[in-house]
Structure formats: C-alpha cells, structure tokens
C-alpha cells in the first residue's frame, strides 16, 4: 500500500475509480448500444444546461432537506422519549422497531393513499424510511451510559433531569451520530423511491422519464449523479462528523 501524506487521503479511492472507468470504457467497446463513460458525462453536462433539470435537482434537494430535518427531530425526540420514559417504551418500543424494519420504498403506496401524488407524500416516505434508525440508535445510546460515567456524575450531584440532560444525552451522542449517518443513506433511497413512484418533479421522476423514453445514456447519467451525491454528502458531512465524535468520546484515535 502506498502511504498518502496527511490531507491527501481523499485521493485514496482514485485507483479504484480509475479501474472502474477503464472497465466501463471496455464494456462500451464490446457491447454495442451500451453507452461509453464519455457519452454519459456528455449527457450529464447537457442536462445541467437545462432549467427543467436544475429545478428538478433543486426540488429533490429541498424535499431531502425538509425530510431529513424532520427525521432528526422525530428520530432523536422519539428516541429520547423511548429511553427516558418506560411507559412510552412499553407502548411504542416494538412499534418503533417495526417501522424501522420496513424499507423506505414500501411506505410509498401508503404515503400516496394519504397525501396523493404530492411533495408531502415524498417527504412522508423519507421520514418513515429513516426516522426509525435514529430513534432506535438514540434509545440504545441513552440506555448504555458507561457505568463509570454514571457513577462519577452521581458523586458530583447529577440526578433526575440534570443527570439526563448533562450526562445521559451527551453520552449517547456517538450512537445518535451513527444513526444519523445511516438515516442519510436510508432517506436518500426513500426520496428516490418516492419520486419514482409519484410524479413529483425530481431526480427520481427524471429517471422514470428517461427510462420510458429508452434513453440509456440519460438513465445512466442520472443514476451516476444519484450515487455521487449520496456518497459525497456521506463523506463530506457524516463520515467526518462520526470520526470527530468518536475521537472526542475516546472511542477512536
């Protein structure tokens, strides 16, 4: 393995990406009708010139932002209630796990029944597809306060609500962040499923349009864009956040 200097670790996936590119180029040579990478990038570049494409992209981004904000609110709020209040846990605990077990795409039909083919149905899909994991992780986190932390805080006078807010909640943050990172991935998938199956203007809907029109290069271009956005946000925000939190909490160096 070549050791990269500090600050250049973002170059790590370059060899793998280069290999992938070459393979793609080769398959495009062999199979007639399979678009080459250059053709796909060309289509993508052309897509960005179109106002309709850009507004679809903005629409997806907006829905994801609203959906994710609700996921954070409901997931963390619900998880805190589950972990703090035994009665809520008894009534809602298994319910939260059940919601968490249903894939995002499976919520679309119900969302459409309730909200019609609207933006709200898509946001509802994101929330149900991603809030469960945040809830379950938050709940687990606040139940697993390290005993030495619990003991130390009690000798320093923490009890009741002060113990909860100043000890239990911060101790649970690494678990919450794990949940938030997964929720981004789940939510992004749920967004695509929602847009594909409703006719709300967005990346998902563009995907079904180009598929119906038989434009294979256009289809690949949008899929590539979906993957790149998903991975980029995960790397730039969530992976960094997770690492920073793990270092400070003494879980990684």
């Amino acid at each position: 393995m070549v050791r990269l200097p500090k600050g250049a670790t973002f170059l790590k996936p370059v060899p793998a990406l280069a290999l992938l590119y070459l393979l793609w180029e080769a398959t495009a040579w062999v199979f007639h009708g399979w678009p080459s990478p250059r053709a796909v990038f060309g289509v993508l570049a052309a897509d960005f010139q179109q106002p309709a494409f850009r507004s679809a992209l903005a629409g997806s981004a907006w829905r994801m932002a609203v959906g994710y904000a609700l996921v954070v609110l409901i997931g963390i709020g619900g998880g805190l209630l589950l972990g703090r209040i035994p009665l809520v846990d008894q009534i809602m605990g298994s319910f939260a796990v059940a919601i968490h077990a249903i894939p995002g795409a499976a919520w679309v039909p119900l969302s459409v029944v309730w909200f019609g083919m609207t933006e709200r149905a898509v946001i509802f899909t994101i929330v149900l597809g991603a809030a469960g994991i945040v809830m379950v992780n938050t709940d687990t986190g606040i139940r697993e306060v390290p005993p030495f932390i619990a003991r130390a805080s009690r000798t320093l006078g923490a009890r009741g609500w002060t113990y909860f807010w100043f000890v239990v909640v911060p101790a649970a943050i690494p678990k919450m962040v794990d949940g938030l990172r997964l929720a981004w991935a789940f939510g992004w998938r749920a967004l695509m499923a929602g847009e594909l199956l409703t006719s709300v203007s967005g990346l998902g809907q563009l995907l079904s349009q180009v598929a119906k029109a038989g434009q294979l290069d256009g289809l690949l271009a949008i899929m590539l864009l979906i993957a790149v956005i998903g991975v980029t946000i995960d790397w730039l925000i969530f992976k960094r956040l997770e690492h920073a939190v793990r270092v400070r909490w003494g879980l990684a160096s």
Partner: protein
Amino acid sequence: MRVEIQHVCKSFPHNGSTLEVLQDVSLTVEEGQFVCLLGPSGCGKSTIIHLIAGLERPTSGHVLVDGRPVTGPDPSRTVVFQDAALFPWLSVLGNVEFGLRMAGVEPRRRRARALEYIRLVHLSKFVHAYPHQLSGGMKQRVAIARALALQPAILLLDEPFASLDAQTRAVLQNELLEIWELARPTILFVTHNVREATGLADRVYVISSRPGRIRDVQDVSVPRPRRAEDPVLLAHQHKILGLLGEEVEKVLREELGETVHFPEAQHPAPPEGSLGMHI
C-alpha cells in the same frame, strides 16, 4: 466530617450465588485525617469507598458521616476514581465546572472557582483541552480538581495513581499532600501500594481479602514531609508486607489452586530509592 463504618457486611449476587465482599468491617476516620485503605486486589477496598460515597448500600451494618447514615451521593463527599472517569465530551474546564453546575452556581462564579482549582493542579495551559488529548497523569489531575472544586468535607480516592508511572505518581502524591494541608478535607485513600500508604497516611487500615476484613491498623506518626528511607516508615512497611504476604498467598491459592508454593523470600523489603512496593 467524621466517617464511621460500623459492622458493615456487603455481598453481591454472583453467578446465581452470593459473593461476600466485606465481612464485619468497622473503621473510623476523624475529621481532617488522612487514612489509607491498603489491601490486595479484590479485597473490597473500592466497595468501602462506594459505600461512603453513597453509590452502594451495605447489606448490613451502618455507614455514618457525622453520626448520620449515608443515604446517597452528596457533593460534600466527592470521589477520584482510578480511571479518572472524566466526561469525554467536556473540556478540562467543563469537567471541573460540572459539580458546581449541578449545584446551580452561577456561570461567572463557577468559572472562576474551576480555574482556581485547575491552577492548583497545574493545568492552566490545558483549560480548553479535551480528555482524549491528555496523558494519564493529567487526566488524574483533572479528576482531582473536579472533586476538589466542590470543596468537599470528605475526599475519597480509589487507587487514583495505580495506572500511572512511578515518577508521575510520586509528583501527584506530593501535590495531593500539599492540597490536603491547604484545605484539610478528611481523606480516604485506597491503594495496594505499601509505600504509598505509609508515605501518605496518618493511619493505615490493612484489609484482608475474600471476604474483606480489617486485618490490622497502623498509626503512622512520622511528621511530614516524610523521607522514603525513614526507619519508622520502613518498620511499618515491613510489618504490613508480612501480613499482606499471607493475604496475597491466600488469593493466589484460591485463583490458581493448592499446587502453588511460595518461597520465604517472596516479599523482600523495597530496595533503596524505589518508589513503591506493589502487592
């Protein structure tokens, strides 16, 4: 404050049966006294600290502070734990302020008080550092400052320096004595290091293991600062090591079976200049 433990027994459930950790332990610590609890690992020393801190209740017997039974933790009795047990999400300042914050001290006053104790443990340069950035010795300094910031009448230390290297331990022992002479809290200090116990304490309780019982009490009346080679200290150490040798043997026999044989010279007197004798 005066600490009294009267005929305390403590047992825990363990693999379906009960494990007796303390058996009929009685001890008294006078106000402002520095007392060490010395014994082999697993003898229930930490349990005594937890009982006085109010983190555990005795199975039978009484734990009294100024004549009143201990019913739970209280800011007048703070603890320095072996692993420091700092809050990793708080800076040095945040950790030292924690108890004051719980007590509802207003921000400006608690900050000033925290900074004062951070200065006392020589960490002024690291006020805004986080625990993961500190060495083991620095973490223990923070833990001591955090426990002192509440100005406790009783300071409980549970093998606070056990995981530190010899030099750091010696420095922190001296600093602890300085702090004690400044504020004069009642101190209960748990250790399995004979030198540490005789070097620090006014009185050493030697605790036997499984179940923990008071095996011996040694009043160390050597004035401070104490020299490591003081003959009176050496005599105390020699006596304690003799008692503890039997104890350590007992523990090892239990753990390893009856086949282990111990030669006579198992516990030599500490060599000149060494910083401590572990058991």
